[in-house]
């Protein structure tokens, strides 16, 4: 399997009894509440969530930076995490895309490893996609009327087709209005190590993204990717800090947290 060029349409399995939850390294260390809220959402739908203890990272940082051997080493270490034929749910479009489209090539020429990686890829789902298409997520919106903006990560959009899914999930919340922002499909400038290597361009991109999001008047930005979430919200925080504002001008949260909170769930305690 390789990077998709034609269609992202895929067949979805029937509702399973259990899923593997592949949290991603960013969620594990930096945004654990989002991971916890995703788990709560799945469990509330009656799904048993298995958290493989030995999970670390999908290998994407090394893969995209141009260190294929290092990426391979990490990916190979992750291949035994999902022994049962269960769906693997990932609360990040770019990491899900990594499992789904790239693991098979990253592991190299060994046919056994390739087959294993391809089989994992075929049962990997981005969280929002899984909620909508497999679980048919539909809950009563208990929140006050609110306007939010949605940012979809580029990988989620282009490798997993999840920009439409996020919109559909928000549309199912009765009191939520989605505000569209200027150049909505454009990258927020994160790009993993790109944000460290080319701060000038990355800053220009994220500043434009933050300005476009703020211009909608939305109370917050919701996204299903923690890389973008950290990039956008930490940029907005810096702008607030520089301007001496006490209140966050653009708070943001993971789509999982937003969905859970709006529909009467108990969100994980923030640190």
């Amino acid at each position, binding site marked *: 399997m390789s990077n998709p060029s034609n269609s992202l349409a895929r067949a979805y399995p029937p509702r399973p009894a259990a899923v593997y939850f592949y949290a991603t390294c960013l969620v594990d260390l930096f945004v654990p509440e989002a991971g*916890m809220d995703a788990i709560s959402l799945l469990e509330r739908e009656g799904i048993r969530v298995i958290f493989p203890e030995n999970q670390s990272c999908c*290998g994407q940082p*090394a893969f995209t930076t141009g260190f294929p051997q290092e990426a391979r080493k990490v990916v190979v270490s992750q291949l035994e995490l999902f022994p049962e034929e269960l769906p693997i749910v990932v609360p990040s479009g770019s990491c899900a895309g990594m499992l789904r489209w790239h693991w098979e090539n990253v592991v190299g020429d060994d046919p056994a490893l390739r087959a294993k990686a391809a089989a994992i890829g075929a049962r990997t789902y981005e969280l929002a996609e899984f909620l909508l298409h497999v679980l048919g997520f539909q809950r009563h919106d208990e929140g006050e009327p609110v306007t939010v903006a949605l940012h979809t990560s580029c990988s989620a959009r282009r490798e997993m087709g999840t920009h439409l899914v996020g919109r559909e999930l928000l549309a199912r919340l009765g009191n939520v209005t989605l505000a569209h922002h200027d150049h909505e499909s454009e*990258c927020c400038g994160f790009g993993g190590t790109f944000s460290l290597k080319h701060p000038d361009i*990355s800053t220009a991109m994220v500043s434009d993204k933050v300005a476009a999001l703020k211009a909608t008047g939305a109370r917050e930005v919701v996204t299903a990717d923690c890389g973008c979430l950290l990039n956008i919200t930490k940029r907005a925080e810096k702008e607030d800090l520089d301007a001496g504002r006490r209140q966050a001008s653009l708070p943001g949260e993971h789509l999982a947290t937003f969905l859970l909170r709006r529909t009467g769930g108990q969100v994980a305690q923030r640190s």
Partner: protein
Amino acid sequence: MSTPQSNTAQPLAFVSAQALRKRIHEAVNDTHLRTSFRGAMDFLMAKRAAQFPDASELSSLRDLSESIRQYSLSKLPELLEQLEANLTRNGVQVHWASDADEANTIMLGIARRHAAKSIVKGKSMVSEEIEFNHAMEAAGIEALESDMGEYIVQLAGEKPSHIIMPAIHQTKEQIARLFADKVPGVDYTDNVDALIQIGRRVLREKFEHADIGLSGVNFAVAETGTLCLVENEGNGRMCTTVPKVHMAITGIEKVVEKLEHVAPLYSILTRSATGQAISTYFNMISGPRKPDEKDGPEEVHLILLDNGRSQAYADEQLRKTLQCIRCGACMNHCPVYTRIGGHAYGTTYPGPIGKIVSPHMMGLEQTHLLPTVSSLCGACGEVCPVRIPIPELLIRLRGEAQSEPHADPALAGQGAGYSKPLSLLWRTWAGIYASPGNYRLFTWLASRFRALTPKQQSGWTAARTPLKPAPRRLRDMVRERH
């Protein structure tokens, strides 16, 4: 009559990583540049989108175009031989050039044989690639651009900032000032029609008196020996028919087998490039003037240039680079190009396509940082009419640039971006992340000692508040809850 000042732009012996960073820094802080590129790219994106209202038709046309290009490349050596045979039969003289110097030497030889003093040029990115104007100027021959955009950048002593719209970075006011300063007898006017008439007047006279016309080639058809040229201004037709000698130059990858292969590629080219259903002119050149014909050049030459293309060709994955039909859609849709413009790259071909072709033309010594100038958002690959997987190729080139240098590299300059500390860092990273025990220990320490997280985090904190590990990792929260 005006003669453009010598092209004072720096030759392409360019990209120290430092110089590239400096140009990028200046470009993103140039509000005028930012606004004008954003506006121009938005305009071009909208024009393209309007040409493809039907996503499935676009998808089929991209499939077809990709397969035509891949098929052509799969038979490249034999198609080139067939092209040469048929062009020769048609009376076209075919020359092979392995690099820029050879190409310029060949064309200078032709010019000298005709005692040429002036050459009028249609738009050709390959002529930019080989610094043709410099080479001719050094030999005392005037080479005048006749495409309006190219004429403007030549007058300004600049290089094209876009492969289709070379002067896209110039406002009409800047062009008005340029014409008033550089074209004798012209007063300042920023009326676009008047500006075009000024250029037209200058160029008409040049067409009449030029000894040689130079053009590029969009498609070279092997089975008929035909050179196809796509253009909008009619200057291409003038360059290839009025002067007594026509020299065409193109990269070896531009060949297709059959005439019927041209139609889909032509259709997707103009729609992707400028959002036009079809270009104003489409020239098919199959040889010099025949004895019973009233016009056309008496001599036609084709220069087939390699200049690193066979290096890309030799590698199955990198060969996809050669599928390119030079539409420029990748730059129009690129969030990085939109913010830094074409000149910041420092290469003949800017934007996403430039990042994957330039390393073959110039070697990775000069270009090793170039593939990193991308957030890998994938917008380029999404619009590429021939489905070049640009992000995948960028990743590959990042790897080649940073690999340990070998004695006999398959790619020129392979390993030029190698850094021992960086390699060690990634090896350490893999050592931690590939071992569950190490990973748990590392994240536990990072979380437990989060107060010690550095406040300055390289490029991140230039524009953002610092990242800080959470007090409890997700795995801790999961364990505590269950």
